[in-house]
């Protein structure tokens, strides 16, 4: 199935040179740089069951989330064009973008904590690359073209009509699924009913959205039809962070060398439990041999665990020759959960996520910014000083609100507020003129005043800095 990348010397006994994937080269790229397509065998087991249940849930969430509303607004909508961001009942505008830093660092550190504890569980169970590749596209491929053994047989038989039809059917289905995924993704950036409307109207009415969907469909298609594990191995930085995030207590997929070695066919005296059936190699979607140890390519999919457990069941040996364990667990038989690394990552996670949650919910429901009107800082007529301002009011709540201006009474000041009440829609804003007059003798050099902006959602007091001669 997988070509042995290591050449045997002519005439040497096959058993002396180790076969199969080695640590020295990638299995998916051959010696000339060309791609070797990996065709993992079918596998059944408890981890496959858990993965598939999780994938069904994740895909259901991905597809349904653009349709879900919280407090009358979309649950998740990143409306870049109109600068409105909705996240489970909270509304954000462009001014709040600084919060994205804490949200992203919170998510990043969550991933880092999980990696330090349990290795690449994200990769094998939740990453969209795995969910869609293993959960959707490979199943379609399997449906149209059969098991790897059947595919090899059919390839050797050449291009028959049946084979052409299978290929056309497979790639056409890939295209349809890719388009569906792309449109769903658009639903996170554009209100989902607008997406539906756009799908039934000419592309010229929404060129950017159309271009987005075309490009995304192309990329998704190329990724899942061809690129596949190259993304995990070459492009994604997460796998390469492993070497920094792991320690001897990180749980990941591994082979129990003590129990398994020396390998030998079933019945060999003095041999370990590994009968060198190579099922773990056959089911691996990234083309490694887990018995060589933790490797960059391994995405923690647990196919090898299920495959080996099945074989162990059949030969009457205990499961777990390939299992989830830490290096210390394999060497010493014990695991350690709490260590300084985990504590540090957890603290960083709490800081990132905590600051975001705190800041996001404690934001002011509206902005009232006082700006000086264009022109001189003050004007002087006989002995009356005038300061001209513009008050910028932004409603940041999901609902409409009315704002009322009320100056703090001060006998020395004469306020001119042409507009004292304004009704604003969600995320709408308005500029209101504000004039303050006073006698130069009352406030030499200027002074300060206060203006209250009241609304049913709260009151803000604006400090008005007055300037005078």
């Amino acid at each position, binding site marked *: 199935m997988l070509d042995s*990348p*290591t*050449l*045997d*010397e002519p005439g040497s006994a096959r058993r002396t*040179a*180790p076969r199969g994937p*080695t640590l*020295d*080269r*990638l299995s998916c*790229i*051959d*010696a*000339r*740089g*060309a*791609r070797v397509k990996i065709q993992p065998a079918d596998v059944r087991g408890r981890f496959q069951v858990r993965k598939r249940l999780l994938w069904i849930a994740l895909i259901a969430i991905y597809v349904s989330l653009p349709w879900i509303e919280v407090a009358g607004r979309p649950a998740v909508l990143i409306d870049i064009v109109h600068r409105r961001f909705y996240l489970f009942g909270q509304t954000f505008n462009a001014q709040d973008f600084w919060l994205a830093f804490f949200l992203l660092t919170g998510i990043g550190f969550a991933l880092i904590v999980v990696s330090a504890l349990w290795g690449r569980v994200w990769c094998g169970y939740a990453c969209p690359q795995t969910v869609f590749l293993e959960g959707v596209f490979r199943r379609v491929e399997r449906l149209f073209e059969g098991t790897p053994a059947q595919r090899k047989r059919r390839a050797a038989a050449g291009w028959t009509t049946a084979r052409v039809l299978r290929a056309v059917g497979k790639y056409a289905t890939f295209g349809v699924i890719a388009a569906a995924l792309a449109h769903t993704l658009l639903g996170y950036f554009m209100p989902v009913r607008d997406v539906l409307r756009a799908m039934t109207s000419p592309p010229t009415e929404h060129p950017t959205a159309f271009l987005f969907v075309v490009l995304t469909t192309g990329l998704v298609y190329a990724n899942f039809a061809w690129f596949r594990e*190259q993304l995990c191995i*070459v492009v994604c930085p997460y796998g390469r962070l492993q070497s920094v995030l792991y320690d001897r207590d990180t749980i990941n997929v591994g082979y129990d060398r003590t129990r398994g070695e020396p390998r030998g066919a079933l019945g060999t005296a003095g041999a370990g439990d590994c009968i060198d059936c190579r099922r773990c190699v056959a089911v691996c979607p990234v083309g490694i041999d887990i018995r060589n140890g933790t490797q960059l390519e391994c995405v923690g999919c647990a196919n090898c665990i299920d495959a080996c457990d099945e074989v162990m069941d059949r030969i009457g040996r205990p499961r777990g020759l390939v299992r989830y364990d830490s290096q210390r667990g394999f060497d010493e038989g014990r695991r350690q959960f709490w260590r300084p690394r985990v504590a540090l990552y957890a603290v960083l996670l709490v800081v990132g996520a905590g600051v975001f949650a705190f800041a996001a919910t404690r934001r002011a429901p509206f902005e009232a910014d006082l700006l000086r*009107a*264009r*022109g*001189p800082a003050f*004007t002087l*007529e006989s002995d009356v000083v*005038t300061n*001209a301002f*513009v008050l910028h009011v932004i409603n940041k709540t999901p609902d409409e609100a009315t704002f009322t201006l009320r100056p703090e009474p001060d006998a020395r000041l004469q306020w*001119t507020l*042409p*507009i*004292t009440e304004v009704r604003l829609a969600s995320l709408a804003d308005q*500029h209101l*003129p504000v*004039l303050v007059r006073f006698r130069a003798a009352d406030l030499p050099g200027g002074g300060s005043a206060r203006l209250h902006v009241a609304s049913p959602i709260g009151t803000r007091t604006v400090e008005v800095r007055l300037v005078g001669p």
Partner: protein
Amino acid sequence: MSAPRDVVRAHEFDGITEFDNRLPNWWLWTFYLACIFSFFYWLHFHVLKTGMLPRERFAAEMAEYEARRNEIAVSDEMLLAKAQDPEVLASGAAVFQGTCLPCHGPRANGVNVVDGQSILLPGPNLTDRFWLHGGRPVDIYRTISQGVPNTAMIAWKGVLGANKCVDVTAYVLSLRNTDVPGGKEPEGTEYVEEGVR
């Protein structure tokens, strides 16, 4: 264990050696294409100057934006023509309701009538023949757009944009000389124009 084909490179650091495995072809080719692309990119932007650099593009966009937003070519004829356009008048009326009404009154005559009492508002009567800052259409536009220093008449161009200033000027032009009764006393100088208003 390495096969005869695997080449180990000559250097060694702390016992770590390096294989000379072939890079994936797709990677090499995207690299080569990127090199070729960057050569033409360099020609386009830095040699032949057929493309605008970000700074130049920003300056061009700002110039176009300024021209569109703040400097609409106005003339008496253009504004009077706008005052005949129902769509412009509708837009101007909407702006007036939202922005001008608090000072100039709901009937644009500088007063607000509450429970039979007439309250004088800060803004002048726009329906009479008398204008503080000039009665020509371009004068009215300038008053609205650039404002009057020292008063509540701010430079509305900065807040509404030139288009809305034109719209509300057209609306005011449709109101002038209508002499709505009960309004503020005339202020400023009379403006008489030959022909129709």
